[in-house]
């Protein structure tokens, strides 16, 4: 921030509801660091899925800005998370995104930690060295039916359990822990992480920007509710399809109704099972399943797409045949990592049960389109001409909820 720019508390206080954030929120290094401290170190952050670390000794490393985390599966099959930094001289412990280890061993001087984080070996230290005081620093970790979340705070928000209780039954039928990762795509988004999240939280842009995605999805499922005769006819068709889908799901005991707590909880979230066009099966170019082996114990292909969003950094689409998860991690004030993971049943065979390019076609294209849009927004908000603009109440209400949640949590963080 320049000397003439108000400091963070002033910028937070003067944010106008229904308007985009002021430029420093998208460009300023001091606010970027505040985001890492007050948002990413104090809330539940989605980092990956259980099939990434399926076996004892499997570990994954995740960098959340300046927070380096490793998540391990121990010999009792429990998940453990630690700061990915040696207690000796601070070297990074796990370098690879995924690895398999006996113990966690520092590559520098071979300090060796058990998968419980306890220091088990530190050579050449004095006789009175207290190994028990040099274990790895714990990070909270929870799995929501196979979606892995970590929290770096001393005390993690306890409303995660509420979210898990509510959303768990929606996700469980898709059997994440019986999936495998079919593909992962990392994109460096050319804008602040909040621009990526804001772009995800509306479908105002979908019709013009996403020809592949809108083959299957309805913008109406993502907060798009414009007025006008044509729009209302489309909305009525969508509502009829939602009614049909939810009735069919109810018969199968699969929860599907909307639950939305994006801005009224510390661990904000939204979920709803949404209908898809035509065949109604999957977010593919032909709206049909991309994988012949269905997930979990599902026997019905036409279940639409379960949408699940979390504040501050994730969204997910669960279909009968595959799952796509998205995680956003801040990199610099004006870049962020978007990590997309495609999951199919663990027994599905590439080339037999699914074609990888067909499986990934829609979201591969959509991610690239979204990334370009984020870049356009970033290119504008960093210029002198930028002033906050108004959100469309009819189509961008969920973007407003993201911003309202962010402002509220930043203020709570500064106060506490």
């Amino acid at each position, binding site marked *: 921030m320049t000397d003439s720019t108000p400091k963070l508390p002033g910028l937070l206080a003067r944010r106008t509801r229904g308007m985009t954030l002021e430029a420093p929120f998208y460009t300023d290094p001091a606010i970027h660091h505040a985001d890492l401290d007050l948002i990413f170190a104090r809330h539940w952050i989605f980092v990956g899925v259980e099939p990434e670390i399926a076996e004892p000794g499997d570990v994954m490393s995740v960098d959340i800005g300046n927070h380096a985390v490793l998540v391990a599966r121990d010999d009792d099959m429990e998940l453990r998370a630690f700061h990915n930094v040696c207690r000796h001289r601070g070297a990074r412990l796990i370098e690879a995104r995924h690895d*398999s*280890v*006996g*113990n966690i*061993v520092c590559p520098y*001087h071979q300090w*060796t930690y058990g998968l419980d984080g306890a220091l088990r070996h530190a050579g050449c230290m004095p006789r009175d060295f207290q190994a028990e005081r040099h274990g790895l620093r714990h990070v909270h970790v929870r799995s929501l039916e196979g979606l892995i979340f970590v929290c770096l705070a001393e005390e993690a928000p306890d409303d995660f359990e509420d979210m898990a209780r509510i959303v768990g039954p929606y996700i469980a039928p898709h059997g994440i822990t019986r999936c495998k990762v079919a593909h992962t795509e990392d994109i460096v988004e050319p804008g602040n992480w909040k621009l990526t999240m804001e772009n995800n939280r509306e479908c105002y842009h979908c019709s013009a920007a996403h020809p592949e995605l809108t083959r299957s999805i309805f913008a109406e499922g993502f907060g798009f509710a414009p007025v006008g005769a044509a729009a209302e006819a489309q909305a009525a068709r969508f509502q009829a399809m939602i009614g049909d889908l939810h009735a069919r799901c109810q018969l199968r005991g699969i929860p599907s109704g909307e639950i939305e707590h994006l801005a009224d909880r510390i661990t904000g979230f939204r979920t709803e099972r949404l209908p898809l066009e035509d065949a109604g099966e999957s977010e593919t170019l032909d709206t049909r399943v991309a994988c012949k082996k269905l997930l979990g114990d599902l026997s019905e292909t036409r279940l639409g797409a379960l949408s699940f969003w979390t504040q501050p950094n994730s969204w997910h689409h669960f279909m009968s045949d595959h799952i796509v998860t998205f995680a956003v991690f801040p990199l610099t004030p004006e870049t962020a990592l978007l990590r997309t993971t495609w999951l199919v049943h663990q027994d599905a065979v590439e080339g037999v049960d699914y074609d990888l390019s067909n499986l990934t076609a829609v979201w591969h294209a959509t991610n690239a389109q979204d990334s370009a849009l984020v870049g356009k927004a970033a290119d504008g908000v960093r210029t002198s001409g930028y002033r906050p603009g108004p959100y469309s109440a009819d189509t961008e209400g969920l973007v407003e909820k993201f911003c309202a949640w962010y402002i509220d949590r930043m203020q709570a963080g500064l106060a506490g």
Partner: protein
Amino acid sequence: MSESPTPETGFTISFSVTGRDVQCAPGNTVLEAAELAGLKLPFSCREGMCATCKSKLVSGQVDMQHKGGIRPKEIAAGKILLCCSRPLSDLVVER
């Protein structure tokens, strides 16, 4: 012709990268045998935890008593920890 080697007489360990053959006395680990012969191999904990000495066993059998430093799938792939492995036959080790 000499008698075939036994745990009582010790075994020969051939290190395939350095081209060195060393004798391993009864009761010694592969790492100890290498050290007594003046070979410098990587190690740290000496008790099967840190895996610094993890190596490929090209041929032969060992009795390995590790403390969690190596996974079953690594053992299945022919890896051993030299610090806690005692020969049960002549060995070829990729070092």
